[in-house]
């Protein structure tokens, strides 16, 4: 598949926003039950919510560039019964609303007014937002995982990777943020960023190994229904290009793909972990922020590779220009 930059940006940006929100709400819950010291910095939650919301909005804006007719985007909420894309279109704005209300509630001091049984407004909104956040990961991943013709995507690992990468990058950003405004939390968040990056490494390597062993189910024999073992296309039917020759081919040599794979394996895992570790030990928020930036850049490469590695069966029909 040809990597679509709008979708690469959408999935990575909302992943960061979702991970940051999950980190934020986890901190609040752990502080409420006394595991963590409550963050003392004024505006810790509202500012972090605003940052998470900014990432979500940026992702949503990027997604519009994928559409041929963005002015009709509202129609995409219609088919939620069957389409994961439609479900994502519903869950993403709902989640953004929750993040907004969560930040607003903290800004206006809603925690001081408990609703029922010790659960106050922001805790309720945060819990609801967490559910929506996990649903959003599921929707985003399932958009790809539900396409059975693309065996590289058609696996639960796709959803798990989206979840792990989103949490890892969001926690990385949370650690950098805490390093600046709330140093007491920086170590805790950094440790969890390490854990989730490690989990992402395991699941992504697992999917790389799995995809490397895949054998295509469709062949030229099944594509045109001729049983002979040797079939060669001599003409795809036209001399120029078409949507089919552009959308489904990345057009890069195999060596380029390999270099992107190794680039993201380096930029998403060891480099950010080293920067995060050094930055946390040296109490340098700049290094932790650098860890986030490097990992995010690596995630762009990871998502590019995710698309480029998927081989669509329609490519069997478009092998030879003549």
């Amino acid at each position: 598949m040809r990597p679509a930059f709008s979708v690469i940006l959408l999935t990575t940006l909302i992943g960061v926003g979702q991970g940051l929100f999950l980190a934020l709400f986890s901190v609040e819950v752990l502080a409420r039950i006394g595991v963590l010291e409550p963050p003392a910095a004024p505006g810790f939650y509202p500012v972090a919510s605003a940052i998470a919301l900014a990432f979500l909005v940026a992702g949503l804006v990027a997604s519009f560039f994928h559409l041929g007719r963005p002015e009709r985007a509202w129609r995409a909420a219609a088919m939620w019964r069957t389409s994961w894309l439609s479900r994502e279109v519903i869950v993403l704005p709902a989640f953004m609303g929750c993040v907004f209300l969560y930040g607003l509630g903290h800004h206006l001091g809603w925690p001081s007014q408990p609703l029922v049984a010790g659960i106050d407004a922001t805790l309720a909104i945060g819990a609801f937002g967490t559910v929506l956040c996990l649903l959003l990961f599921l929707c985003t991943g399932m958009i790809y995982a539900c396409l059975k013709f693309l065996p590289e995507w058609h696996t639960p690992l796709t959803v798990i990777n989206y979840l792990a990468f989103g949490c890892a990058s969001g926690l990385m950003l949370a650690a950098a943020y805490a390093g600046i405004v709330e140093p007491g939390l920086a170590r805790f968040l950094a440790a969890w960023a390490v854990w989730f990056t490690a989990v992402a490494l395991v699941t992504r390597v697992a999917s790389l190994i799995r995809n490397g062993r895949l054998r295509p189910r469709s062949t030229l024999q099944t594509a045109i229904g001729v049983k002979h073992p040797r079939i060669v296309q001599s003409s795809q039917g036209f001399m120029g290009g078409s949507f089919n020759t552009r959308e489904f081919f990345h057009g890069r040599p195999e060596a380029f793909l390999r270099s992107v794979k190794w680039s993201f394996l380096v930029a998403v895992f060891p480099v950010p972990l080293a920067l995060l570790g050094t930055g946390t030990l040296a109490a340098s928020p700049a290094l932790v922020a650098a860890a986030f930036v490097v990992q995010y850049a690596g995630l762009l490469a990871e998502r590019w590779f995710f698309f480029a590695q998927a081989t669509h069966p329609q490519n069997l029909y478009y092998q030879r220009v003549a």
Partner: protein
Amino acid sequence: MTQLALVIDLNVCVGCQACVTSCKEWNTSGAAGFLSDDNPYGKDPTGTFLNRVQTFEVGEYPNTQTVHFPKSCLHCEDPPCVPVCPTGASYKRAEDGIVLVDYDKCIGCKYCAWACPYGVREVDEHQKVMKKCTLCVDRIYDQELPPSDRKPACVMACPTSARLFGDVHDPESEVSKAIRENAGYQLMPEWGTHPANHYLPRRKQELKIHDDALERVDNPLKIDGKLPRPGVREPALDDVTTW
């Protein structure tokens, strides 16, 4: 339930591309708007087509066969492109099984094209919506046309009658008989999409002439005489031309 479809006889298709041009002509002139072309005479021409004829070489030289392979939307009975559409623009008609795109609802997200293993959906680069074969839905029900012309444009154009059109759910239809009697098959059966369009395979065609086809053995009225046999010494046509 009606399921309209095409049956394409690979044994007969000569790869003349008449169905491609006829399809383009009909569908670029209709109420649904044009099918974009860019640089048709330039360096890098590109355009939207609903039907393509491809060519495959089967076998190893010198024992090869050239298979011309027309490809358009197969109007699957279980179309994978329909449930993924977020807007409902892509739909399968209950009354005749045609898979259509509502061009006024399509947002051009290309997700249906990703979900189609056959590569038969093409985005119109100017209208920014997904285009696909409609089985000439604006033609086959047109009461203004004589009944013999109420067929898709590609079927009308085919000079060798390699394309048949009809209801594959009606066991007595021309297409159902063609599928049944000539081992019609579906493309990529491994995905469970159950394409409605079928293909008829290449078949060996030998003309075996028996004596009784030349002479009436039963000769009911005893009128026919035996044909005179050429004498062994008489020159045959081959000998005449190779003198």
